[in-house]
């Protein structure tokens, strides 16, 4: 039996949405294993959360009725926000494939296929993709949703309540997907074609970074019952709240009519923009073939030349290569921004939990100060390995022959140095630049000394993390999740607890006795310097790695003493 062209094309578009082209076969296999492991952790966490919800709903008093409703609204905001987040993140990650592009035009339009076939297949694949994530996340949350609806079952209104929730939550998820599609659609429609690729890459990065930063806000939604009770100012700005309003309105609670209206208007608006963008591209599909015009920036040319001048040519070359790649590779830009945003979100959550922001300086308790001291250290500890991972993900493995051909002993040390500098800039300087002003605001000018000490500690962590780094950023094949996942999780957690506790104490001592801080700084700096010296001494003797390998040694358990 012959497949219809629409079916074949839809299948092709759908599978290409999951194509991780940057990974080798081993890497893709390893990623699948890591994803399965993460799924298992997520399911375990979901079961734990279900128990927490069951306990909460068992203990919630029926009276006053409004108090129960506001708790329910807060929980439903969370239960709608989770699928919204996953769907928006998934669609944002495949932002480059949301509309038929130049490759589709070149390859498909020479085949006996109508433009309508190409577009409907693309839309169908996108719908399948979004549907898969919407269904998957809702199925995963089903036990939690059921727990929140148990009370309605007792009053006999279970079915209307479930339908209202279903309509609202599904609308919320599709709205989240449509927002991302509409943003990309506006770009395709209105941006100069020469800039579309670059802008859409940056938009994807910003969307992913923003979504990651939203994670702590999302986690706080179950605790927002009072906000719903008091009609907090931020509710009209929080998309999950709109759809909770829609749910209440569908049940018959007209008090949330404004939020419900907002949900309907925004959904319709992004739907119209998405449809318009598709329609516009359908009529002007040939436009995608236009080549970007060359810019005429003489200054850029001279600047680029000047940047190559100087000593340590290989270090400069690699530094420039890394800098251009981070600016132009959507994958790496997204990885770095996404991972740094993850670290930022974690720290932001900690800072938001601290009580004392609105109190006078003298009356703040010690835990507030500890949180302020904890923030940069936690940020660095998460950001440094994250940047290392981003540097390890390859760009174009077929092109790394040029580095293999030009490798030399002295160059290896310079490459190591360039890599460490990159991690220092992104993993230490960025977190300190973001948290430094907060520390200054809280502890005053003493923050300068603290920042210096934090920078030295960050340097030590970078040297430790990069001690086995024998590769050029973005040039070696990558196999994610090589280690034994539970072992890695325990190790990472222990490292986090030890590091943040120890460094908080050090910073506290340094704040109380600045002289002690200087001594500690010198000791930590000497340790970092020693590690750096050792790294530079060994680098020329160790060949660069261009092919990542799975560990072949069996890890002995060593249960016997000998």
């Amino acid at each position: 039996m012959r497949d219809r062209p629409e079916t074949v094309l839809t299948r092709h578009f759908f599978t290409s949405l999951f194509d991780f082209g940057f990974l080798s076969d081993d890497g893709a296999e390893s990623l699948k294993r890591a994803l399965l492991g993460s799924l298992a952790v997520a399911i375990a966490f979901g079961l734990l959360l279900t128990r927490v919800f069951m306990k909460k709903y068992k203990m919630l008093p029926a009276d006053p009725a409004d108090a129960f409703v506001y708790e329910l609204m807060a929980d439903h905001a969370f239960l709608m926000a989770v699928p919204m987040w996953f769907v928006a993140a998934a669609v944002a990650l495949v932002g480059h494939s949301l509309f038929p592009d130049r490759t589709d035009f070149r390859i498909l339009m020479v085949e006996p296929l109508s433009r309508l076939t190409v577009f409907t297949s693309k839309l169908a694949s996108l719908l399948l993709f979004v549907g898969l994530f919407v269904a998957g996340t809702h199925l995963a949350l089903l036990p939690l949703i059921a727990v929140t609806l148990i009370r309605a079952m007792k009053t006999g209104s279970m079915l209307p309540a479930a339908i209202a929730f279903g309509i609202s939550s599904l609308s919320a998820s599709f709205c989240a997907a449509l927002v991302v599609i509409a943003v990309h659609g506006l770009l395709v429609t209105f941006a100069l074609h020469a800039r579309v690729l670059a802008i859409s890459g940056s938009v994807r990065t910003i969307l992913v970074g923003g979504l990651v930063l939203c994670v702590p806000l999302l986690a706080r939604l179950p605790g927002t019952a009072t906000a719903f009770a008091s009609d907090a100012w931020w509710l009209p700005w929080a998309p999950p709240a709109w759809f909770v309003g829609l749910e209440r309105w569908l049940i018959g609670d007209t008090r949330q009519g404004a939020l419900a209206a907002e949900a309907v208007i925004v959904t319709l608006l992004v739907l119209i923009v998405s449809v318009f963008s598709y329609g516009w591209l359908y009529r002007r599909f040939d436009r995608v073939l236009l080549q970007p015009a060359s810019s005429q920036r003489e200054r850029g040319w001279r600047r680029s030349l000047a940047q190559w001048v100087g000593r340590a040519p290989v270090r400069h070359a690699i530094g420039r290569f890394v800098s251009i790649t981070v600016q132009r590779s959507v994958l790496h830009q997204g990885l770095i921004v996404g991972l740094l945003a993850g670290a930022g979100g974690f720290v932001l959550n900690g800072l938001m939990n601290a009580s004392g922001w609105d109190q006078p300086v003298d009356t703040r308790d010690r835990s507030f100060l500890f949180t302020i001291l904890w923030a940069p250290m936690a940020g660095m500890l998460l950001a440094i390995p994250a940047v290392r991972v981003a540097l390890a993900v390859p760009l174009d493995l077929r092109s790394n022959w040029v580095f293999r051909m030009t490798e030399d002993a002295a160059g290896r040390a310079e490459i190591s140095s360039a890599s460490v500098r990159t991690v220092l800039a992104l993993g230490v300087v960025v977190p300190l630049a973001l948290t430094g002003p907060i520390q200054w605001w809280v502890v005053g000018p003493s923050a300068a000394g603290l920042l210096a000490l934090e920078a030295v500690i960050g340097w030590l962590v970078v040297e430790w993390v990069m001690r086995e780094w024998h590769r050029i950023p973005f040039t070696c094949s990558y196999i994610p999740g090589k280690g034994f996942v539970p072992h890695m999780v325990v190790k990472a957690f222990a490292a986090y607890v030890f590091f943040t506790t120890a460094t908080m104490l050090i910073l506290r001592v340094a704040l109380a006795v600045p002289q002690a801080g200087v001594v500690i700084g010198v000791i930590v700096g000497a340790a970092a310097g020693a590690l750096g010296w050792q790294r530079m001494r060994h680098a020329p003797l160790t060949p660069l790695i261009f092919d990542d390998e799975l560990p072949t040694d069996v890890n002995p358990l060593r249960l016997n003493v000998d």
Partner: protein
Amino acid sequence: MLQARGLTKRYGGLLALDRVSFELHPGEIIGYLGPNGSGKSTTVNLVVGLLEPSAGDISLCGIRASDDPIAYKRRIGYVPEEPSLYAHLTASDYLMLVGRLRRLTARTLQHRVPELLKLLQLHDSRYRSMTTFSKGMRQRVLVASALLHNPELLVLDEPFSGLDVNAGLLLRTLLQMLAGEGRMIFFSTHRFDMVEKLCSRVIVLSSGRVALERRVADFDREGPGSLEETFVRATQQPDFAPLARQILDTIAGD
């Protein structure tokens, strides 16, 4: 001189190259011919030092690749078969990167890179990332990067692929002049016409073994088409007419 002795390469159980030996002298251009899967690309990867042989050795100007791979590779310029380069860079960024990795001085690069870009007609596109480049333009960037450090041995794997007529003629003339100045050129290709026009000697590879090694002048004496006929015989190619007939029958049937 480039000397390959008993080069053998196995990929697991597959013998890709079986005791291949040849010499390439200064001023000489060797044409390296062979059908797909004959081991041409494996030889090229061994010659440029991207692969290590399972047996045998290779040396350039007395430096064995296995003894000092860095010094060995420093003397080589390479144009790969596929135009594999970091396309997110501009042409000048890429040449600067390669030049710095080759440890050319800033002064040399400041002069050499723009000049090469001008001469290879890439100057107008110097600010564009190479993602927008045609195959021919990428090929010209690769030729420039191979020549940038003025190497003693040029290893070219289908260098004319994608080049327009003018660029092809320029490259051919350039290669002849480089050979005239004493450079060694290892030229892997499928194009008999280019081998006849450029090379002094030809090596034909079949199933991982050297099937034929002759001077190109000998073919010239035997008349036009002689290289092609010899190649078909040496590589034991089937008669193509029945094969073409079969293809026609296949597409005509249900």
